[in-house]
């Protein structure tokens, strides 16, 4: 990377965890130019589709770490996560458990800035003054993964530590659908 004074930098973060192939890859530039000439735009509504979208969906299904069935495309990680949550809610209604709609995130977890994705994100700065999180999300406050790492390091007795870290959670007004989860001590062992 070069700034406007001509000074060179090493980009140690791939931009924002993005440029796996570095910068200025010619093949990617060509692929974009080719596609703009060939079919500049088409959408996926009203039973329409097009070759690049279908092909990409098939490629992703082939790469998936577990058997997957369908792919939905969006434009950012935030939108992808919001979509995932909406599908979870849709499913809850389909199976007749409309009360089970919580999205459980983690302290320090980051999932984006759209309304639902930001709600599942566990950093106060993404909530403050935005009136987030929404009530359908729940970021488990304690214990965090850091606590879990420290427990592992200290080889602490989980039975001794669990009441201490679970009390703040359990003393809050119980969110009914979450209750069985929070009562299970293996959450603590697992790192919550």
């Amino acid at each position, binding site marked *: *990377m070069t700034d406007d004074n001509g000074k060179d*930098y*090493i*980009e*140690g*973060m*791939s931009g*924002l*965890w*993005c440029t*796996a*192939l*570095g*910068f200025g*890859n010619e*093949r*990617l530039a060509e*692929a*974009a130019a080719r596609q703009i000439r060939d*079919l500049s*735009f088409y959408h*996926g509504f009203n039973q329409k589709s*097009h070759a*690049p979208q279908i092909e*990409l969906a098939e490629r992703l299904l082939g790469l*998936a*770490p*577990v058997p*997957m069935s*369908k*792919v*939905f*495309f*969006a*434009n*950012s*990680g935030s939108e*992808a*996560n919001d979509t*995932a949550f909406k*599908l*979870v809610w*849709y*499913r809850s209604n*389909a199976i007749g458990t409309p009360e*089970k709609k*919580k999205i*459980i*995130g983690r302290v*320090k*977890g980051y999932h984006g800035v759209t309304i639902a994705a930001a709600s599942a994100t*566990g950093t106060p700065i993404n909530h403050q003054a935005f009136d987030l999180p929404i009530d359908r999300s729940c970021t488990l406050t304690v214990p965090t993964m*850091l606590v879990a790492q420290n427990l592992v390091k200290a080889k602490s007795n989980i039975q001794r530590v669990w009441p201490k870290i679970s009390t703040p959670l359990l003393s809050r007004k119980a969110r009914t659908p979450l209750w*069985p*989860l929070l009562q*299970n001590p*293996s*959450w603590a062992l*697992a*790192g919550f």
Partner: protein
Amino acid sequence: MAFIAEPVMGAGGVLTPPTSYFEKIQAVLNKHDVLMIADEVICGFGRTGNMWGSETYNIKPDIITCAKALSSGYIPISAVLINDTVYQLIAQQSAGLGSLGHGFTYSGHPVAASVALETLDIYEEMGLVETVQEISPVLQNGIRAFADHALVGETNGVGMLAVAELVSNKNTGEAFPSEKRVGPHLLDRALEHGLIVRALGDRIAFSPPLVISKVKIEEMFKRFGKALDDTKKWLETDQ
């Protein structure tokens, strides 16, 4: 209900999970019919040393979200992968309603999809996972070499993700007060030495391109070392 997690927490500070963390969580999720969503936006496509972070940490997600390296960041595109059990229920529900009322104008945009396809072609031709597995020890050993530095507490990472935590007391691991802004100070010193990294609090994160060379990684850490030394001097004179 669903639980969402990044295999390795990214913006939270490059936090890797303890061994068997996700296995234990998923046992509870399965028991209570809570879906597992793996947020692979950062970890997906080789970043952790496997194609997916879910492989590195033995996660069996019902839903996967991915973006960023899907197009090497060249063009905005993300994807949601769902398994067949989830799909059948959604199909059933939308059949009843007449349509699934969700989709973006630019969903699967042909230009973005083509760039993503070309990206996946390049990954396949270069042997993405093998490339990462070959180069990542340089990054992991490099970051751990800073464990002896007076300002550095924890060093950690996996694959092509690495982090060094700045601490005020090496022995106790005590953090700097956040108002001291030690992380941001180090970023400025790094810029002076020609290095762009990110401070997540006082955790300095590295996530270089997966195609970076050994020489470039060594140069990157040389510059980081200079920024660390400058920051140490600043702290000493600032006391």
